[in-house]
């Protein structure tokens, strides 16, 4: 087993709003090993993106704040770093890929300039050495004719190519951890498959650890080694991808897997989970999934279930298991 590079322990992130304090991330713990991809799956608004932004400490201030927990990257607790130290970590140790490649590049600079900016920020190199790094980043992401493309402006590229450029910026300083926030959602299906294959390749070459945030189980199956299922600010189940698909233990996980459309089944009605996720300002007292759960018991209404380790890197927070 390779070394654990990121360990998140009991992360609590809140937003102060007019409606009250929103516990967007409420005690999330997970770890990622070197060269491993950890998926975070869940519905919109469950706190996936906020978890990602918390790791980079890039929450929208002053509304969002991390109020508890530890984020340990390669032995250092990121929450104890000064703002300046954190800036040095960003880009060089941790990086992130955003969802929409059409808006995440600056329209006034060539892509070469934008990759070079990241390289210059973290390494003291001469111009020709910088250009070498830029070209090798473009090569890593398999952008054809990198020596020519680096003079292009973002508007001259397609969405798929732009997302590769975003990937090249993220990988330009050889980070140990990459957070990918739905990087394939804005791409069309064929490009999506290419991008995932590309990233698996990038990971093989660089041994980077990836936290892959998505709502798409298909992407999880292809990309992730282990998965955490998030619901209303908590991770309710963590397991290896294989185990999660084979033997999901949390009713929410099974419901999510069942709601993926399948071509190999006869019944053509698509399964969906009844009801809505709870309001984040008014969470139920017991289990958060209780109001929508088809197998709930009395205890689920009253008390929140704790996390139970059921062996083989599989843990669940559900009364039916404990």
């Amino acid at each position: 087993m390779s070394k654990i590079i990121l360990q998140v322990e009991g992360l609590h992130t809140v937003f102060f709003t007019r409606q009250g304090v929103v516990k967007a991330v409420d005690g999330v713990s997970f770890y990622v090993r070197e060269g491993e991809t950890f998926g975070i799956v869940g519905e919109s608004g469950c706190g996936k993106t906020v978890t990602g932004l918390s790791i980079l400490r890039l929450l929208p201030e002053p509304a969002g704040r991390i109020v508890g927990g530890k984020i340990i990257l390669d032995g250092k607790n990121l929450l104890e770093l000064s703002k300046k130290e954190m800036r040095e970590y960003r880009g060089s140790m941790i990086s992130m890929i955003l969802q929409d490649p059409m808006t995440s590049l600056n329209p006034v600079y060539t892509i070469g300039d934008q990759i070079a900016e990241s390289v210059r920020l973290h390494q003291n190199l001469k111009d020709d050495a910088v250009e070498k790094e830029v070209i090798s980043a473009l090569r890593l992401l398999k952008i054809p004719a990198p020596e020519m493309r680096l003079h292009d402006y973002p508007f001259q590229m397609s969405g798929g190519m732009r997302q590769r450029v975003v990937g090249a910026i993220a990988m330009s300083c050889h980070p140990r951890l990459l957070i990918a926030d739905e990087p394939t959602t804005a791409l069309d299906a064929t490009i999506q498959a290419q991008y995932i294959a590309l990233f698996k390749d990038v990971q093989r070459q660089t041994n980077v650890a990836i936290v892959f945030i998505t709502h798409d189980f298909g992407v999880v199956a292809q990309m992730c080694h282990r998965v955490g299922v998030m619901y209303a600010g908590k991770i309710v189940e963590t397991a290896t991808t294989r185990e999660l698909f084979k033997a999901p233990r949390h009713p929410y996980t099974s419901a999510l897997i069942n709601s993926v459309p399948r071509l190999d089944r006869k019944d053509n009605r698509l399964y969906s989970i009844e009801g809505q996720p709870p309001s984040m300002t008014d969470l139920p007292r017991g289990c958060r999934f209780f109001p929508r759960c088809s197998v709930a018991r009395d205890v689920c209404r009253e008390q929140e279930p704790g996390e139970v380790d059921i062996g083989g890197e599989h843990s669940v927070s559900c009364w039916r298991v404990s």
Partner: protein
Amino acid sequence: MSGKGIEGSLRRAKIFQQLTLYIPAAVLALLVLAAIFAPFLAPYSPTKTALGQRLIPPFFIEGGSTAHLLGTDTLGRDILSRVIFGARVSLSVSLLVILITSTIGTVLGIIAGYLGGRTGTVLMRVTDVSLAFPAILIAILLAVVLGPSFKTVVLAISILGWAPYARLIRGEALRLREADFVAQARIIGSSPLRIMVRHIFPNIINPLIVIATLSVGLVILTEAALSYLGAGIPPTTPSWGAMVYDGRSLIDTAWWISLFPGMAIGLVVLSGNFLGDWLRDKLDPRLRQL
């Protein structure tokens, strides 16, 4: 349409585009040269009065003479000479004022918009107060305290003139703060200062150029109004604005007194706008390769 037709219209568009650059650039260059070499170009001293030669019309209408190409004013001063010398004041005042106001406005606007928070609120309240003040009143006050001079005029127009820039730039910075590419810059570890200079500023150059070129006219007119009120540059120094005002009571008989300096103002403003448009297109990477 035939290929030839498309090529033809492309060529015409290109020629037109070049004309909108070269003509205004030439006009401004000529005016700047005229301002610099005014003593050699002007046929008369701009301040020399000749009461015997009052209100001579320009040469192309009856009663005019080629001795005074654009005629003379109520004191018999040569209009052409005064327009040439007036370029010095009007051009240098507007250039200085625009440089000062756009710099202050941009810096404050970006800080207020990007950093926001308490700093932003304070800056914007100051801007609101500046916008609410009547500029002319402040200018007169300054002229009284400091005495009318070139420096006073520049200071008087600049002291409140930055506020509209700050307002507009703040709005743009506020919008860009939420842009994904700014988030991207934070992700690679850029500092706030770096983000403001490298990522916000280049993206607000377009609106900045537009208001800067549009304000050329406004500055020249404000300078004129100040001269009219006696708070401007002392009257012996000719300025276009003051000349327009000089001729206002005789506009139905001796219209040339106001018309020629007015045309000069119009030329500068128009050239400024054309150049601004051209510069904006040039700075837009999407249009750069056309």
